[in-house]
């Protein structure tokens, strides 16, 4: 079991550019979560999928952020027109179901917008 895999681990992008982050959940896990972590805001929920379907995106900034899960083995988080305030560590997690089961996190993708 390789755990949750996130790529890239680090990304530096210029202001206004697009950034795409990938997540491969643990095989057999039906729930996938995305979080953002900064020193100021702490851990913020962004969105989650259950069986590839988007269930709750209440934490997603509406205009420039989007997430997809085209198949059970990967999810993407896309940020368009990146801004310096998007700089953060983006964490993906998966669990067997979306309630009542342990959440496992990937190593995270550190995004720096310059």
């Amino acid at each position, binding site marked *: 079991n390789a755990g949750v895999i996130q790529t890239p681990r680090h990304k530096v992008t210029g202001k206004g550019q697009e950034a795409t982050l990938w997540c491969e959940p643990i095989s057999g896990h039906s729930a996938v979560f995305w979080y953002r972590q900064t020193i100021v805001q702490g*851990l913020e*929920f962004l969105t989650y999928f259950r069986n590839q379907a988007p269930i*709750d995106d209440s934490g997603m900034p509406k205009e420039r952020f989007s997430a997809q899960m085209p198949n059970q083995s990967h999810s993407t988080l896309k940020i368009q027109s990146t801004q310096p305030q998007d700089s953060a560590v983006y964490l993906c997690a998966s669990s067997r179901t979306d*309630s009542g*089961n*342990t*959440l*496992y996190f990937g190593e995270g993708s550190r995004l720096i917008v310059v």
Partner: protein
Amino acid sequence: GQQVQQSPASLVLQEGENAELQCNFSSTATRLQWFYQRPGGSLVSLLYNPSGTKHTGRLTSTTVTKERRSSLHISSSQTTDSGTYFCAMDDTNAYKVIFGKGTHLHVLP
């Protein structure tokens, strides 16, 4: 929605001392999990404990659901225990998992 409060915000101990971390929440939760994070590291699951008492190694978690609180006890702390400890649980009437702000633990040699 669910409110999660962790205390203390920070804690400094001498190696060998015990630590008691608290998590209080506003609504009942079906999922409650304790995580550890080293600076610059990812979140490592320590214990999944929505109710009762669970042990692993030097860690003990006790969750009293009706009182909406959970604790994490670290016995005989070591310098390698230094880092941030988070409790997390599902939000009210939702399945998203939300986190407390964490307890920063520093264990001195």
